[in-house]
């Protein structure tokens, strides 16, 4: 895990952390250690120190109960999973099924697996079982038939895990440990073990896509680092360890990325330094003609590769920003004036070039983009800048770039900051939406009057019940939104689907369009029956930060009230549960005209609200309606 900085004085730092009497600072020290490059034994030690921190003292971490159902020994993988979780803001509680008995555990409601109430179930099955019935002489059809049986069997396990246990499913791809029988001819022999496992992984991916199951792609990981790193025949023979101990920290990292992504904890923004990062040389000294960038020069091509990678990330919905110690005019001119630049100024949603400390500039970038600091990745070739940012802003991810510029792109890619669990139309449009947001902000600054600005936007809300086609985006919004999210409840796509199908519930989705573009599906609301007749509760309400301050919350509530009345409700109940990130909406329900209810015994700082529907007067907004 070369993108993490090398551990310094691990032993002493760990001891010091373990003797820290205050839980919050102890946890912060342990989290700091988890962000360093650690070996197998160090991860075990750090995990033990983490285990000493009681669950109720793990403030700021998202708790996750993860069950691993495997056909091989996985005990040695758990410390790496828990520490990688800590690295990503998760407090992972783990459970291992009875060895080789995952089917029985799943089907038996009295099993310890059911007692554990897992939120995430990982299926880690060894390939040798999956292809045991395939003969090397099997025809293509026969091979596929048997592989389909294996995949169908897995799908029934997935259904069981989701249906009965209400867990999110992660399926591990099959590590291809088969030995070559035919050499390069292998690919032409469908029943040969190596080829059968290869085909099995392809069919597994198709099934996972169809069922909305996440894949933990150890098959790809083993191509990336080499199969010998992931699989050790001796360890397999010795203790049926399918994943070699040396790969355990990396395995945990790959798994934690997915679990974190499902909870909206993936990074969202790539912040790039300029000099010696996006191009070679210092533009302020060397001039636009003097910087090294572009085809024909190995160093220039390496910098170009990083630009291309950043551009690809932007195309899949990652926001790009620039943070550089530079004269802003010269820095912008390099974007406009250098013919080899792949990144254009318009690709950069927030461009900060000055001589201030970078930590302050990163704060500014986060604020301007309305993103949390923990959504940022900061890429800088200068070790001193990296160390300064890590010291000031430990929540910002700062990859430890190698000396050689040839390795920059690989380093950023290997770090897996932008793990995805879906790829929606909204993702593909996000870059344009951020650009449009920037021009809206500029218009607002120039118009100076908010009402005029909103009136001039010609906004329309397109809305309706959540349909099947909306499920992936609605689930993504529910799981990624931290700011406009009064309850921070997370639901898997299948849970959202179940709520939508419930006639007693109302699930609404809202798209906001305006003169400058389609903002996409930006808000969703779920109302569930409350305690008492005629009461509906705002169980979940999320809104993308892209449309804050556009009066959409008022129009959405107008629409929700109408829908609630249509269902016969007389009162809406709502609650606000404070989280580290949702302070921006603490007055949301007061502003919407709700009345405070007596505080519940529940979480400290929570507030409860009610809205008698016969008293509700719709708020007038600048948003026209377009029901779907």
């Amino acid at each position: 895990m070369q993108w993490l900085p090398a551990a310094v004085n691990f032993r002493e730092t760990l001891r010091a952390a373990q003797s820290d009497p205050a839980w919050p600072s102890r946890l912060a020290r342990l989290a700091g250690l988890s962000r360093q490059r650690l070996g197998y034994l160090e991860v075990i030690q750090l995990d033990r120190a983490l285990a000493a921190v009681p669950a109720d003292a793990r403030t700021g971490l998202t708790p996750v109960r993860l069950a691993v159902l495997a056909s091989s020994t996985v005990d040695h993988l758990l410390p790496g999973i828990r520490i990688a979780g800590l690295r990503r803001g998760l407090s992972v509680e783990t459970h291992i099924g009875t060895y080789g008995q995952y089917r029985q555990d799943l089907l038996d409601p009295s099993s310890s697996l059911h007692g554990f109430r897992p939120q995430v179930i990982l299926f880690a099955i060894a390939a040798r079982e999956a292809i045991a019935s395939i003969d090397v002489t099997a025809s293509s059809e026969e091979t596929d038939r048997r592989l389909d049986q294996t995949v169908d069997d897995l799908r029934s396990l997935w259904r069981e895990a989701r249906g009965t246990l209400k867990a999110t499913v992660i399926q591990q791809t099959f590590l291809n440990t088969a030995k070559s029988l035919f050499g390069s001819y292998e690919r032409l022999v469908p029943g040969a073990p190596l080829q059968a496992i290869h085909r099995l992984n392809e069919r597994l991916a198709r099934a996972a896509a169809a069922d909305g199951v996440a894949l933990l792609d150890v098959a790809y990981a083993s191509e990336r680092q080499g199969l010998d790193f992931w699989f050790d025949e001796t360890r397999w023979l010795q203790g049926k360890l399918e994943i070699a101990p040396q790969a355990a920290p990396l395995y945990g990292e790959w798994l934690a990325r997915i679990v974190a992504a499902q909870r909206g904890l993936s990074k969202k923004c790539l912040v790039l330094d300029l000099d010696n990062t996006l191009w070679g040389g210092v533009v302020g000294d060397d001039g636009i003609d003097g910087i090294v960038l572009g085809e024909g020069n190995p160093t220039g091509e390496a910098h170009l590769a990083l630009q291309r990678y950043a551009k690809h990330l932007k195309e899949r919905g990652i926001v790009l920003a620039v943070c550089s110690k530079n004269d802003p005019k010269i820095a912008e001119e390099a974007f406009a004036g250098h013919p080899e630049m792949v990144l254009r100024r318009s690709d950069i949603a927030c461009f900060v070039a000055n001589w201030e400390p970078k930590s302050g500039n990163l704060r500014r970038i986060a604020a301007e983009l309305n993103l949390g600091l923990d959504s940022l990745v900061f890429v800088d070739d200068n070790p001193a800048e990296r160390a300064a940012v890590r010291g000031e802003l430990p929540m910002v991810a700062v990859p430890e770039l190698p000396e050689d510029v040839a390795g920059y792109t690989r380093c950023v890619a290997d770090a897996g900051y932008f793990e995805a669990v879906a790829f929606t139309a909204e993702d593909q449009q996000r870059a344009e939406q951020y650009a449009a947001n920037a021009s809206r902000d500029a218009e607002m600054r120039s118009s100076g009057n908010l009402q005029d600005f909103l009136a001039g936007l010609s906004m329309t809300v397109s809305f309706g019940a959540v349909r099947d086609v909306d499920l992936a985006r609605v689930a993504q919004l529910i799981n990624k939104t931290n700011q406009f999210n009064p309850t921070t409840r997370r639901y898997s796509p299948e849970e959202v689907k179940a709520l939508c199908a419930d006639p007693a519930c109302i699930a609404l989705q809202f798209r906001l369009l305006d003169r400058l573009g389609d903002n996409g599906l930006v808000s969703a609301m779920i109302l569930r029956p409350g305690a008492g007749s005629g009461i509906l509760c705002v169980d979940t309400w999320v809104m993308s930060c892209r449309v804050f301050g556009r009066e959409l919350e008022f129009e959405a509530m107008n629409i929700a009230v109408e829908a609630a009345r249509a269902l016969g409700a007389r009162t809406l109940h709502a609650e606000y549960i404070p989280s580290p990130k949702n302070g921006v909406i603490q007055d949301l329900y007061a502003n919407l005209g709700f009345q405070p209810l007596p505080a519940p015994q529940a979480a400290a700082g929570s507030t409860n609200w009610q809205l008698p529907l016969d008293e509700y007067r719709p708020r007038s907004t600048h948003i026209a309606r377009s029901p779907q």
Partner: protein
Amino acid sequence: MTDQEILDTLSRTLGDLLADDSIALQMTTRRSDVPGWDSFSYINFIAAVEMELGIRFGVADVESFENVGAIVRRIQALKSAPK
């Protein structure tokens, strides 16, 4: 490496693994002499020693270590073998 240096490395590795700084392995120490050194932590120990010293035990080696002295002798042999 001297036998004592290897013993020190093994003691530190096992101590880290079992969170017990008092572990001081001798050539004659057997697994059953060390509380907590069960078969699972034994595999962990072997793996950690391999990573620490840059050596690879064979599957037959691992089965046949009757005491720590046997591990030390095997490490000496692996270290002196031509690469």
